[in-house]
Every structure is written in structure tokens, then in C-alpha cells.
């Protein structure tokens, strides 16, 4: 059974996320020129990915040593696997497997 505050919080949070999620689809056609749309579809995705990756790895810097080593090893294996085989699932799978192994088998 949910308490009132939790239910109210869930509803208000859902409403608070709605503008950011729906406004681009509601008014985006009117606000963006084709050149701007190309910016959003071609150049912003790699830029967003780059920013997210910086945030991920920056936060790893404050993590315990085994986590740092595991994430570094996982990243290197992911990159190597993808440069070699160029298969998304293989690259993500091997990189993650190495990360799990290093993190869980780290001595001490």
C-alpha cells in the first residue's frame, strides 16, 4: 500500500518531466530550420555521447581502485573489440565481461 506522499511525489515528478519530453515534439517543427534540424540529428548525438562518457569516467576517478581498474580495462577491451570486429553486441559484451571479472577478482 502506497502512502500519500510517495504517490503524490511520483505524480508530480511525472508531470515535471513532461514538458522537457513532449515540448520538442509539439513545437520543434516550428522552431527549427532544416539546417538546425541537421545540427540536432547529425552533430549533437556524437557531442551528447562524448559529454556523457566524460561524466561517466570523471566519476570513476573518485571510485575505489578495483572499480577504476575494472572500468579502464573494460573500456580498453570494448574499444579494441569494436575496432577489430565492429559488432555492437560483441564489443559491449566482451568489455562488460572484462569489467565484471576485474572488479570481482581484484585481490584484497
Amino acid at each position: 500500500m502506497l502512502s500519500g506522499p510517495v504517490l503524490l511525489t511520483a505524480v508530480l515528478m511525472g508531470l515535471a518531466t513532461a514538458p522537457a519530453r513532449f515540448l520538442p515534439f509539439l513545437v520543434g517543427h516550428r522552431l527549427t530550420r532544416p539546417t538546425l534540424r541537421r545540427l540536432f540529428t547529425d552533430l549533437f548525438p556524437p557531442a551528447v555521447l562524448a559529454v556523457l562518457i566524460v561524466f561517466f569516467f570523471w566519476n570513476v576517478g573518485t571510485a575505489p581502485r578495483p572499480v577504476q581498474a575494472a572500468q579502464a580495462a573494460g573500456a580498453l577491451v570494448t574499444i579494441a573489440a569494436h575496432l577489430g570486429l565492429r559488432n555492437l553486441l560483441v564489443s559491449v559484451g566482451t568489455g562488460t565481461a572484462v569489467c565484471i571479472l576485474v572488479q570481482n577478482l581484484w585481490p584484497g
Partner: protein
Amino acid sequence: MIDTVQGFPPSPWRHAFRLSIPILMGYVPIGMAFGVLWVQQGLEPSGAPLLAVIVYAGASQFMAAAMLAAGQSPVEIALATLVLNARHAIYGLAFLERFPKWSVAKGYFAFALTDETYALLAASPPSDDPGRDRAILWRVAFLNQTYWVAGCAIGAVAGSLMPGGVSGLDFALTALFIVLLLEQVRAAEKARAALVATAVALAGVLVLGTTNTLLPILAAALAVVAVVRRRAGTC
């Protein structure tokens, strides 16, 4: 990449599932971590999957657990959510041309466009058939939310019995971002955009840190990418 049976492409569900597997590997353990945290804060277990269904925003959900436990009001939490999720406004614009008309599928897709779903789908080449493309887009979004809800529910039910799950499994999301970026930067113009964004992000986190700074740093990075492109004379 796409397997075919007797010359036919796989069904949209099958195609969407294959695309979403890396998200499955990341969302379930992170969702479980949220569910465990939620219960450990003394909150009702059913609240964890409820937030996953209604809110479906990982960072905001973790924040809500901490704020609720600290006794902050629902309105305060909603305002913080509004600020934290403002970055989603950027994501929708990338899919305007792939969803030209309103439909239930488009409405759901707009709701379910998280960081990870955006990263996966914006970097994936669209299908030649627009109808099939839309069918795959909303199915990927739906499957991703299903993984997230399942993870949150499992974590909330398991509670303190499964405090950590398999540590390191959530690296799948980082690996996914790395692979998607590698695919993107094969084109010189996109590589330049990624390099510029990386430089801005590094400068931003050096100066501001990473606590509640994703939105301003992301906005700054995209603004600089736009300016650099304009100065290069291609826009």
C-alpha cells in the same frame, strides 16, 4: 547487422530486442540498485516500480529516494526533477523527422526517450521504410522501460538480500556509449563535434564538478559545437 529469413528482415519486435540488449544489461542492475536503495531508505517497496513506470528517469529517481528520506516535500522533489530532466528537451528534436505525425506510438516514444534510449537510437541508422523505422523506435523505447521497471521491482523486492547484484554489470551502458561514439566518429565532421564536446565537458567538470552540472555542461558543449560548425561555414 540485421539477420534475414528468406530475404525478409526480422520482425520489428525481434529487431528492437536485438538493438536493446546492451540497455537490458545496464538497466536491470542499475534498476535493482535503485530498488534496493529505495527500500533501504525506509520507503514502501511498491514505490520503486511505480516511479519507474510514471517517472522513468534514473537520476531523478535516485534523487527522489534521497530527498524523500530526508523529509523534503513532493513539490521540492518535482522542481528538482524539472531542472534535472530539462536536457531531455534536446533529445526529442533529433527524432522530429522520423515521427512526423502524432500517434499513440509517438506520444509514448516522447515519454520514454531517456539518455540511453536517445544515445542508442540517434546513433543507429534509420530503416529505409519510415513505418518500420517508427515501429522499431517505439518498441526499443518500450523494451528499455520494461527492463528498467523490472530491475526496480526486483531490487525493491529483494531489498537487503541482494545489496549489490553483480558488481560491474552496469558498465554495459558505458560500453554502449563508447561503441556508439566509435561508430559516430567515423565521419570527420562528427568526430570534430565529439572532440569539441569532450573539450568543453572536461573544462566544465574541472571547473564545476559533476554534481548537478550535466545540464549546463551539456548545453554549453552543444552551443560550442553549433558555433564551431557555423564558423566552419557548413551551416
